[in-house]
């Protein structure tokens, strides 16, 4: 019974991802596209929860669906580009070509997925590691933090430099005269 409900939730989440993400591509209005993309990000957050990544699900909602999409909506509002572009309809040969290439890509990935047999359904609860005499379950915030601040400490510090450089770049780009 629990397995069926989990499958239903996952199928619903998959639908909630695919439907809005298609709408992002199909719909003309940029603001509507952005709002549909928020819906798709929330669906991905649900899948993260199912995949035992509660912290990443929270970050997905706060950073992606929250901060990044607000930035997008702010720029759309700032530029006043909320009308469909006049040139969107004159794609010509590019539209069928793009669909064909996407189908080729889908066939390749699908072939890989079918040829590589899955190891079957994973167990519900992951193995338990012991950190400092305390049992920590797979996917918990504690396990993530332990990996992040021991094995990946240098990379974690390096991301601060990435963010600093991005910030300087944006300030330079946003100046009136380049």
């Amino acid at each position, binding site marked *: 019974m629990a397995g069926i409900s989990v499958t239903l939730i996952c199928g619903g989440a998959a639908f909630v991802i695919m439907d809005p993400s298609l709408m992002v591509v199909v719909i003309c209005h940029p603001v509507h*596209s952005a709002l549909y993309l928020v819906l798709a990000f929330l669906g*991905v957050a649900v899948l993260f929860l199912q*995949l035992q*990544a509660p912290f990443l699900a929270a970050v997905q909602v706060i950073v992606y669906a929250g901060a990044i999409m607000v930035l997008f909506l702010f720029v759309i509002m700032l530029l006043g580009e909320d009308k469909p572009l006049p040139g969107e309809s004159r794609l010509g040969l590019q539209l069928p070509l793009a669909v064909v290439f*996407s189908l080729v890509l889908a066939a390749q990935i699908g072939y890989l997925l079918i040829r590589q047999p899955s190891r079957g359904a994973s167990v519900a609860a992951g193995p338990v590691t012991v950190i400092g005499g305390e049992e920590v379950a797979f996917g918990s915030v504690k396990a993530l933090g332990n990996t992040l601040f021991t094995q990946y400490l240098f990379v974690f510090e390096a991301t601060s430099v*990435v963010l600093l450089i991005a910030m300087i770049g944006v300030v330079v780009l946003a100046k009136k005269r380049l």
Partner: protein
Amino acid sequence: MPTTYYLAISAVLFIIGVLGVLVRRNAIIIFMCIEMMFNAANLAFVAAARDLKQMNGQVFVFFVMVVAAAEVAVGLAIIVALFRNRESVDVDEVNLLKY
């Protein structure tokens, strides 16, 4: 749910993103489709992390999110600078480097 299902969802999300980049002309929407592809990669990372029972995949997703945030800030600044010069976000009108 076996890991293959999650990878299939991730693949579909990625392909929709690719299709969006190919068929749209609005720079902001192209950018949103790139974000969609980032999310597809993140989903594949988390699915693989659970399949292999390794926390490394989830840490990688964390770093991908950091880089995505920096990339969005820079990209949107470029789009704003583009709009100042061209009065448009149509990528067909940005063709100085073409041919």
